[in-house]
């Protein structure tokens, strides 16, 4: 990998300053960024580590729901959100493998917005708010396609606020080699209705299955979606599964998530 200058600020303000330099790139857990840099698909001139900033760490209940610092490890969310938001804890505990969970962070996952990543599904289904150094972004506005988000250059996610649903579940069909989602569905039943977010399936990244949301808001049971079909147009097709296979998985996994929601 090409060399770069490494900086590790201890406050958000200093991180924002460092990110203003030309060629600066934020580094969180690095579980995607390091392999990407090794392949020279990313060649930052300056890497700004966000893992030494205390105000970006931790899980706690606060205004608007569960607050998760952007540099919080997956393993920490799995442990500390268990009683507060069980479906989110389950999701975090199923990302990658233990070594990845001990290093990867929620902010890193969301900034990257891999089309098969787990966290985007939780954020979108929960109707969470992505908080940055300069604004709050609603989940519905944040995700803008594969590896694309509403973040501006140099903007840093500092925390995520999850409204905790009445019932929720995340069901992931593992791609066993990468341990990303071949397809996965997060179902969240809120007081105002049901939200269904799908990851791993679409070429546009995470999306809401609105027909299922309508059906499930009227009747929160797996049978409520039995008459629905998912259009395979625009679904990811690769050697692991065709577009039609993934479209079918969306429906199957949604049913399982509704059945598992608690």
């Amino acid at each position, binding site marked *: 990998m090409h060399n770069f200058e490494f900086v590790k600020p201890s406050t958000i303000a200093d991180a924002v300053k460092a990110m203003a330099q030309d060629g600066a790139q934020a580094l969180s857990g*690095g*579980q995607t960024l390091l*392999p990407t*840099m090794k392949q020279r698909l990313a060649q930052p001139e300056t890497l700004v580590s966000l893992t030494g900033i205390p105000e970006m760490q931790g899980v706690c209940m606060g205004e608007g729901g569960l607050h998760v610092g952007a540099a919080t490890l997956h393993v920490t969310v799995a442990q500390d959100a268990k009683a507060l938001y069980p479906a989110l804890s389950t999701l975090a505990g199923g990302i990658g493998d233990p070594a990845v969970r001990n290093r990867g962070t929620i902010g890193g996952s969301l900034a990257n917005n891999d089309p098969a990543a787990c966290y985007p599904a939780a954020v979108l289904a929960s109707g969470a708010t992505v908080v940055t150094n300069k604004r709050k972004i609603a989940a519905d506005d944040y995700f803008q396609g594969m590896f694309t988000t509403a973040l501006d250059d140099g903007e840093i996610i500092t925390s995520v606020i999850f409204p905790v649903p009445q019932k929720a579940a995340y069901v992931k069909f593992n791609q066993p080699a990468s341990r990303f989602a071949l397809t996965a569905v997060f179902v969240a039943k809120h007081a105002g209705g049901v939200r269904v977010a799908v990851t791993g399936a679409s070429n546009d990244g995470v999306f809401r299955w609105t027909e299922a949301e309508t059906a499930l808001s009227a009747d929160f049971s797996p049978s409520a979606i039995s008459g629905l079909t998912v259009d395979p147009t625009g679904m990811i097709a690769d050697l692991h599964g065709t577009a039609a296979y993934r479209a079918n998985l969306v429906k199957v996994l949604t049913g399982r998530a509704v059945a598992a929601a608690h």
Partner: protein
Amino acid sequence: MTKVTMTVNGKSVSAETEGRTLLSSYLREGLGLTGTHIGCDTSQCGACVVHLNGRAVKSCTVFAQDVAGAEVRTIEGMANADGSLGVVQQAFQDHHGLQCGFCTPGMVMASAALLAENPKPTEAEVRHGLEGNICRCTGYHNIVKAVLAASGQDVAAVAAE
């Protein structure tokens, strides 16, 4: 070059690094601790797993400068004080939990971290916990038995054949 100091296997150590120096390179080239193996260098195989502040991480996917000041434990720190094999190492030997041995340092470190968190795992929990470690000899059955044995459980009773 930047001098990075950390505590490795209980000793304060330091070595010169570039920004791009990986923790695995710091250990192997900077400190001569070549027990940590680099299998894939693409974050997939787990041969390079070490403990970073008590947690298993892939040392090929961490920058040395990012963990300055940390406590690191490598396979060289797993033996008992008298030089005899540690519990997990001994169990791997007893149950033939290695064939070519290349993945073994990472397997031992991942297993030790797993047992620290879950002292009496089921067989399924061991398999789930070692998901990030690949053995290309496919010696998984004996590795799983070794981990169950290291937990003090009766392997014949808890391991599927």
